[in-house]
């Protein structure tokens, strides 16, 4: 395994990877995937990519082109230093100033957080992925080149374009799951520092992975959704979903759009509409059966709860959050309910809490709570035996560790899954592991990044899933359900299952939470969950 010897290596050996993972040295997975030589080959980065872009390790996420002139090199370094200075400014960074300074000043570099990081662990403890590695580089650059402090106080580092470009690339080797921060005895948050490095790159230098910026928040703000769906297409798709759902459930539904004065504006992650239509269909089925006053919005952005700015850019974040609230205000709803999307939950409920004021400050509620209350009300007739298969629950970091929404989803599962069929992952709840798709990774797939993500970030989650089902037969005909109440997590779990061929080989299937409810509804035709690989 190739790895850096020192934080000072960041600017050394231009063009060479600082770290490389040998897949055959990784910790084997639990059975029946325990033969490491039977795992898929780790796709290699092409020579052309290595030639064109800055090289950090086995993959590329950001695509920072190597500078061709001294001016371009200086531009990278100076842009980074300028952005770094702005992170300490009240005007430019009131949003995170205190948490940022706290982590810059008080990290004791004690490595307590290292054991908590699934990427560092799955890499075989490769130094490059140690949570404090990237933050230490950031700290040293700041104290030496911005504060002009003596390196004997805070450590030394050389600064060149390669250091800057690699550090930006390295900020996209962290899922921002904040497990590291959870274990810090002092309260430092090295995940936040990854996010702040991403902010310098985006907000000062205009450097961002295409998938989350150009094809993400920019597209969402321009046409209405990062999926590219315009209002007209969304309405068409939902109409189709209503028809399809009616066919599957035997219950006719018509999803309401733009109903002024409804109690609830439901905002899905638009990825659900495109990739998992059964999810919005299931929501509509449950909400209608419960007699809720609710609506979707066909206003641009109002039908897509995603807010990728939460991972890399405070202004992009605020733009989307304010538009979500403005649409709710226009409809005059009493509350916004967020569908099964973790980062949309955190973005609009928690982070936008300090952005939305006045008549834009409309209450936001998790669909986990809304669905739990529907179940509690007893309005749905449920037959648990329809979900008579092993179920495990993935806890999306944004919902659980970062919002404290832990029990409603479990109460729902208790109500719709027969006793003895549900098993928790270990660890779970607020100590869960990220699915591996967090902070944008689930939608990033340039070069061989997808492979890197499966081998490095998603592997811990796959390990957990397999462990959760170890007391079950792994025969593919014995179907097992991974419940992931978050769109990005679901996408990542789908990708891991596909990568390891776990549906075909072990009968591991995945889906959302609301689908389990509909699958148990007595009034619905049996078999809403169809166990077909889509």
């Amino acid at each position, binding site marked *: 395994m190739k790895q850096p010897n020192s934080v000072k290596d960041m600017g050394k050996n231009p063009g060479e990877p600082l770290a490389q993972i040998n897949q055959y040295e990784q910790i084997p997975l639990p059975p029946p995937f325990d033969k490491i030589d039977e795992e898929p080959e780790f796709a290699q980065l092409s020579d052309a990519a290595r030639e064109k872009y800055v090289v950090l390790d086995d993959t590329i996420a950001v695509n920072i082109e190597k500078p061709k002139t001294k001016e371009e090199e200086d531009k990278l370094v100076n842009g980074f230093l300028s952005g770094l200075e702005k992170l300490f400014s009240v005007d430019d960074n*009131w949003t995170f100033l205190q*948490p940022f*300074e*706290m982590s810059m000043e008080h990290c*004791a570099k004690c490595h*307590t957080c290292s054991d908590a990081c699934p990427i560092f662990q799955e890499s075989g403890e490769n130094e490059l992925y140690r949570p*404090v590695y990237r933050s230490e580089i950031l700290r040293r650059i700041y104290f030496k080149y911005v504060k002009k402090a003596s390196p004997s106080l805070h450590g030394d580092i050389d600064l060149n374009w390669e250091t800057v470009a690699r550090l930006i690339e390295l900020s996209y080797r962290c899922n921002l799951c904040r497990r590291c921060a959870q274990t810090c005895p002092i309260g430092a948050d090295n995940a936040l520092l990854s996010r702040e490095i991403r902010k310098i790159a985006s907000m000062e230098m205009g450097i961002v992975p295409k998938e989350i910026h150009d094809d993400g928040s920019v597209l969402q703000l321009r046409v209405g959704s990062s999926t590219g769906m315009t209002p007209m297409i969304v309405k068409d798709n939902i109409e189709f979903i209503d028809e399809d759902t009616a066919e599957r459930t035997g219950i006719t539904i018509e999803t309401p759009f733009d109903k002024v004065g409804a109690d609830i504006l439901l905002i899905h992650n638009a990825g659900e509409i495109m990739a998992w239509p059964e999810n919005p269909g299931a929501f509509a089925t449950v909400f209608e059966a419960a007699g809720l006053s609710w609506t979707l919005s066909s206003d641009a952005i109002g039908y897509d709860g995603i807010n990728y700015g939460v991972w890399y850019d405070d202004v992009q974040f605020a733009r989307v959050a304010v538009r979500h609230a403005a649409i709710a205000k226009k409809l005059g709803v009493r509350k916004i309910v967020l569908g099964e999307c973790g980062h949309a939950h955190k973005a609009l409920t928690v982070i936008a*809490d300090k952005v939305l004021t006045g008549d834009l400050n409309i209450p936001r509620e998790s669909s986990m709570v809304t669905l739990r209350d529907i179940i509690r009300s007893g309005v749905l007739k449920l037959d648990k035996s329809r979900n008579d298969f092993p179920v495990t629950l993935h806890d999306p970091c944004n919902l659980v560790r970062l919002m*404290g*929404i832990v029990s409603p989803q479990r109460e729902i599962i208790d109500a719709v899954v027969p006793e003895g069929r549900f098993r928790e992952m270990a660890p779970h709840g607020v100590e869960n592991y990220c699915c591996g798709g967090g902070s944008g990774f689930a939608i990033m797939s340039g070069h061989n990044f997808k492979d890197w993500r499966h081998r490095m970030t998603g592997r811990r989650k796959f390990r957990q899933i397999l462990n959760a089902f170890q007391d079950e037969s792994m025969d593919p005909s014995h179907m097992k359900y991974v419940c992931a109440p978050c769109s990005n997590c679901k996408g990542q779990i789908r990708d891991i299952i596909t990568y390891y061929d776990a549906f075909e080989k072990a009968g591991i299937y995945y889906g959302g939470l609301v689908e389990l409810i509909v699958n148990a509804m007595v009034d619905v035709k049996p078999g809403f969950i169809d166990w077909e690989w889509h």
Partner: protein
Amino acid sequence: MMTTFAYVVAYLGLVFFLIACIARFMMWSKMPMHVRWELYPVAHEGGGKAAYGGSYLEDTEWWTKKREVSLFGELKVMVPEILFLVALREHNKKLWTRSFPFHFGLYLVGGVTALMLAGGLVVGYLPENIAAPVAKIVNLVAPFLGGAGLVLGIIGAIGLFMRRRSRALRDYTAPADLFNLVFFIAAFGVSLVSLVVYDRDFSMVTTFITNLVTFDLAPVGAGPAGLLLTLSVVLLALLTAYIPTTHMSHFIGKYFAYHSIRWSDEPNLAGGRQEGTIQELLSRPVTWSAPHIGADGKKSWLDVTLEDQTK
């Protein structure tokens, strides 16, 4: 002359420590409101939620209900955390075996010093019938706890020094980190030698502290005993003044790390007291340079947020 110098340095050290701590505290407390960045479990969540990491966001229409905030819940986490470094014990046992004696030693030394300062005040300013029993208690407790504190502090600091020099942490260790630990070892070591060799009953140091609080700068000890006492006082005073100027001031920062960040879950309710502050912050100018931000140094956060992005 030497003891007078020790008095002066002790006064300066204590005053500087207090000023630096207050300045640190003010720096953290004056920072602007930031977006919420809490991390669960949040210790003050009521209704049994803190135990599993739940929050008020689990409640039906949470914004219509009074939040249950438990001060006891916070104390239940903070007190063991401060005294026994619970998080470190749970997540990094190897370091805890070094860090705990170091910190606990510090607490004992700090506690005994505070006890002797209080005892000095009683002896100096209150009648004999009150002062005598207090002095007796201080004389009884101080040597035992103070000695134990110094020994634990030195053992912990040596352990931490060796850990910082280990292969795992060496690269993440600046010369200043090592200097800090050496400073502790030196200050505590000289004090321990002074006490063991010349002042086993703590009579010299107790007298010195009583004189300190009664502003009686009379010499204490003579010859090598006085010299060693002076050296120990000077080193401890310099160390006391130095701590809050370094990242070792995390004992102040940690309060904010928990209360203002990790556990800061107070919602901004419509029409509530936070809205004015948020509006003021949103009116601040933005200077970020990337083209998509559209900032010019004059436009505010609100301006750039509301700009049409459809073109």
